[in-house]
């Protein structure tokens, strides 16, 4: 049992727990915190996979911006305990079984299709970490146009959010 395994299983456990909490918690804020937990543990997993930059971005953007936004909105609307209504019969009876089926199917599929042939190079262990320089090279050369496109997308999103959220007088 070596360090990466410990870290992995720890984070995996935390992530799953977080996800479950997200589902079961009735206070939206608890769900939000649970999701933050998931994200942070995922970030650690990214570190384990040697993607430091992505890990940092994951925390900064997801945990530090998006989820803060969620928490902020929850506070703003003072969203109380979620009421477990069941007007949708379909969701009530079919939803969970289907979801669970999908979960198991995917997991089983992944397991069977990849457990057999492990890709040889050292997966795990942050010894061979991706340098930010290479990543940025990729981003600004090979994927320049998508990058610009996303920037425009962000701009539009900002404007849209403004238009939507502003009080119409």
């Amino acid at each position: 049992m070596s360090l990466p395994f410990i870290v992995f299983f720890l984070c995996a456990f935390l992530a799953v727990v977080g996800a479950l909490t997200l589902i079961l918690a009735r206070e939206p804020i608890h769900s939000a915190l649970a999701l933050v937990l998931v994200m942070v543990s995922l970030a650690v997993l990214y570190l384990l996979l040697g993607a430091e930059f992505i890990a940092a971005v994951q925390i900064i953007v997801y945990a530090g911006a998006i989820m803060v936004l969620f928490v902020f909105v929850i506070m703003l609307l003072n969203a109380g305990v979620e009421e477990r209504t069941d007007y949708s019969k379909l969701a009530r009876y079919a939803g969970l079984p289907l979801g669970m089926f999908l979960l198991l199917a995917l997991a089983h599929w992944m397991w069977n299709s990849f457990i057999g042939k492990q890709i040889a190079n050292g997966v795990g262990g942050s010894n061979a970490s991706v340098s930010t320089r290479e990543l940025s090279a990729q981003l600004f050369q090979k994927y320049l146009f998508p990058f610009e496109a996303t920037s425009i997308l962000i701009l539009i999103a900002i404007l849209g959010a403004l238009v939507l959220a502003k009080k119409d007088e």
Partner: protein
Amino acid sequence: MSTVPISYYLVLSAILFGLGIVAFVFKRNIITIFMAIELMLNAVNLAFVAFARAHNQLDGLVFVFFVIVVAAAEAAVGLAIVITVYQNRQTLNIERINLLKF
């Protein structure tokens, strides 16, 4: 020092995705449903990173980057919409916001 098999990550991502879907169907609060979507995105991201690692290619990471950015945009707009909805209907329960039918 031994390494964690790639399939572990993939299975984890599958599980998280499944849980995301379950949450997506199970939750009633719009905001938490949003969170479910974010959870699914995260699961996919994990798979991306794992594959990028497995094949020693950076494209996967770039995709993750884009996914995160788009998720940010989506969250911004989505939450704005949520606020508007709340202002109009005084509820966040998605089952009570069912005017758009038939």
